[in-house]
């Protein structure tokens, strides 16, 4: 009876988080853009702008190239589904979510990879010069970013002797406070990976459609209306997911167990605070740094990879 109640509660929490992330994600994107606008002292379109964009896109008629195949059409749903799921299994408010049993950090990376492969394939489907160019660049960036991310996660899971995000967070947040030098390296690497994977400056620029530089935008050139909407939504979900991974790994404090009603409000407030800070930080970083040439990007990500491995090695060296 009791554990059934717990399970029910857990599932409730899981569903709550599903809903929360999918609704909150565009807001985060909006917030980042708004911060940038402020920093460039423009007035900005307001934090709700992404919602408006999505609404507009959903109401339009879809235009699809003549030779688009089924792959092209299902991709947005797959990508959206994957990102939603990824964002949903990262403990941001409460730890033991039932679904994170089914997919640990490696699976998480797998989810991202799945979405990436599909969107790259879809980009190549039409056969325009841009699509395949974007796909190639995307895969190029990712084949360096993905292992780096994996290494970052490994550092954490080495510390907590687990690849389950909940247990990682549990170890880092709820046991006695320890300073992990290895995590410092990991954090640095993670930031770079985050920038690269979410098509932010200096690797890519979400705001440009300049052929020579764009990566992510080049892939989705052929999408319109609801498909585009889903993809945009998915990318803001992705940003949300990455930031919450960062939170879970590096500042997990304040995340509660399921059923701890007393801590819940505080946890939510803390989460929002963290998100706002992270978004602002991202905005600042993007403002102050310049876009890299595309062939500098591998070196940039290479450093991330090396940093992550270094972190892991340091963990072995110092045992922390």
């Amino acid at each position, binding site marked *: 009876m009791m554990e059934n109640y717990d399970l029910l509660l857990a599932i409730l929490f899981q569903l709550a988080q599903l809903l929360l992330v999918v609704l909150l994600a565009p807001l985060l994107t909006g917030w980042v853009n708004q911060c940038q606008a402020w920093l460039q002292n423009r007035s900005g379109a307001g934090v709700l702008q992404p919602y408006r964009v999505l609404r507009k896109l*959903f109401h339009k008629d879809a235009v699809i190239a003549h*030779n688009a195949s089924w792959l092209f059409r299902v991709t947005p749903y797959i990508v959206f589904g994957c990102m939603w799921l990824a964002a949903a299994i990262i403990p941001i408010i409460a730890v033991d979510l039932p679904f994170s*049993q089914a997919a640990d950090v*490696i699976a998480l990376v797998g989810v991202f990879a799945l979405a990436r492969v599909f969107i790259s394939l879809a980009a190549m489907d039409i056969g325009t010069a841009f699509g395949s160019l974007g796909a190639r660049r995307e895969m190029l960036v990712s084949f360096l970013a993905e292992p780096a991310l994996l290494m970052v996660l490994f550092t954490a899971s080495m510390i907590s002797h687990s690849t389950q995000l909940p247990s990682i967070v549990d170890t880092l947040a709820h046991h006695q406070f320890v300073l992990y030098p290895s995590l410092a390296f990991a954090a640095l690497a993670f930031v770079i990976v985050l920038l690269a994977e979410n098509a932010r400056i200096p690797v890519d620029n979400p705001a440009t459609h300049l052929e020579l530089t764009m990566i992510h935008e080049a892939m989705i050139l*052929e999408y319109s209306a609801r498909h585009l909407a889903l993809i945009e939504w998915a990318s803001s979900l992705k940003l949300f997911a990455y930031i919450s991974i960062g939170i879970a790994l590096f500042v997990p404090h304040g995340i509660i167990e399921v059923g701890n009603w007393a801590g819940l409000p505080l946890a939510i407030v803390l989460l929002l605070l963290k998100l706002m800070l992270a978004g602002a930080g991202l905005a600042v970083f993007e403002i102050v740094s310049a876009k890299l040439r595309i062939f500098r990007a591998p070196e940039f990500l290479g450093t991330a990879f090396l940093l992550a491995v270094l972190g892991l090695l340091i963990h072995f060296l110092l045992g922390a």
Partner: protein
Amino acid sequence: MNAVGILPLDVAGWLVQFWIALGVAGLFLQRAPQLINNIVFPLSALTSLLLAATGLWALAMPTGVMVLPLGLPDLPFHLRLDSLSGFFLILLGAASLGVSLFSAGYFKTMAGSTLGLLCLEYHLFLIGMTLVLLADDAYMFMVAWETMALASYFLVTTDHAIPDIRKAGYLYLLIAHVGAIAILLSFGVMQGGNGIAAYTFDAMRAAQLDPFWSSAAFLLALFGFGAKAGVLPMHVWLPEAHPAAPSPVSALMSGVMLKTAIYGILRVTFDLLDTQLWWWGVLALGLGLLTAVFGVMFAAVQGDMKRLLAYSSIENIGLLLVGIGLTLIFHVYGKDALAALALTATLYHSLNHAMFKSLLFVGTGAILHATGERNMGRLGGLIRRMPWASGLMLVGVLAISGLPPLNGFVSEWLLLQAFLLSPGLPNSYINMLVPVAAAVIALAAALAAYVMVKFYGVIFLGQPREHALEHAHDAGIWERIGMGWLALACVLLGLAPVYVVGQLDHVSQMLLGAQLGNAAGNWIFLAPVDTERASYSPLYFMLAVLGVMLLTSVLVRRLYHGRVRRSDPWDCGFPAQTARMQDTAEGFGQPIRRIFEPFFKIERDVPSPFDTHPRYHGQSDDRLWYILYLPIKHLTEKFSSMAGLLQHGRIHLYLTYTFVTLIVLLVFV
């Protein structure tokens, strides 16, 4: 022993005999090729199925042994079917089932005489591989091993009219033979006692070798089997032979034959040798990492789809070798639970690779039939002409890219888990090595995804690069069935890891005396060590993804009218775009070539800006060929020219030889 008194080994024997019958039948049915296609190959596929079942049955059964009245007078053929052989029998049967079904349709167009021979060689190849798995003494092993090599050689050189194919066949059989010599030597080192009877595997198991000699045996075996598996630096034959062979044959070679080499390494290292040393593991690990990265790197820059797959096979062999190395390290340091984990990952991955690599190779066969083109630079847009093939290939591509919830991901997951659990080894250097190795594995996996996106995207997506592709036809019914089975196997292996791991426990029990087990205790969650550490449930995972997708699409359909308008793609203001302006295979590989420049021997001729008919040509060669193989060739030629000086044509000289020989002997004796 079961009630009927029939053992798996007997059944395997019958199936082999049936295969022989089928092969000979093929030889005699040359007049009626359609019979070969529609009866012999399907029957052979059925046999494969039964063989796989037998292997599954044998996993749980006690080891069966048999001595045939064949072979050498004092060394008759010994057969043995234990869990290890059983597992690889499953692999062989499951893969060849799909390939044989595919072949039933694939060879339709082939001339009767050629087809008859090919049928015979094909079955001899299967038999050879089966007997390699069943052999229990050195002589039979060598006979089966070389029969396998010889049969596959003749299969590779089916289109021997083409000089390149002859060259490939030569290289292949030569390296295979050198490897076989090394294997023979390693058996010789392991022989128990003297006399020819010392060459049964049992005698070798009983033999007590000191570390030096057992290391010698291990190194020789690693070299010999590595030559067959395509481990660096003996890999050069692989990218030549695989494209040369007919696609079903490439599928068998890459999917199954390479695994027999893995089987050999496991058999020698864990079964025949009684002691292992820690540095063997480190060696295997390092070699495996090199091979993996090398393979995937070269796969990324290939323009020929079968060469690309061949290099990706090299990569996967590298991963398997890494797994073996890890197993060795754990086993030597007495962490047998972890060793079991690594071994399970290795076996699992070899099974997966057998499935998806066979699928992809037969897929290339279907493409070859539809278009007659192997060069990816002339393909494209086939997804619209060949819905079946492209759909089934997509499964293979996702699987080999290691994406959840398919099978490739499971074995990678297990392997990475093994790495994550490795700390706490007494040797700090190895402890340092482990994270680096894990990083390299992750890198290779990510690159593999890159390669596969290139593979699938360039071949199936985009616009057709040639007009001929406009009327490419889809795979026939037999081909579809064959590919369908392989794809299904990829999905099932991905969704039911718990069951598979449970079966693999028999093998690790036999080799290491330890099992992996499943901490989660239920069939949904795969949790190697304990649920707190790590758990994975592909079933839930897939349900969740599908659920979310359905939910989304339903919502979208509900809330918004979903009209779709077709129109031209956006040409960014340049209306004269043609299909040739798409990204080519070379173009897709270019960043990789740029990043790993030092590893390639690149020849490029770039047209001058004023060239009216500009043609770009770029080729990335294997440096090892120039560093390693050519010198050996030159050395041999040098020696042979020295030997040639003896035969001078002058009879006086010859008489002088006699004279001098006589005098020398008289003086010195």
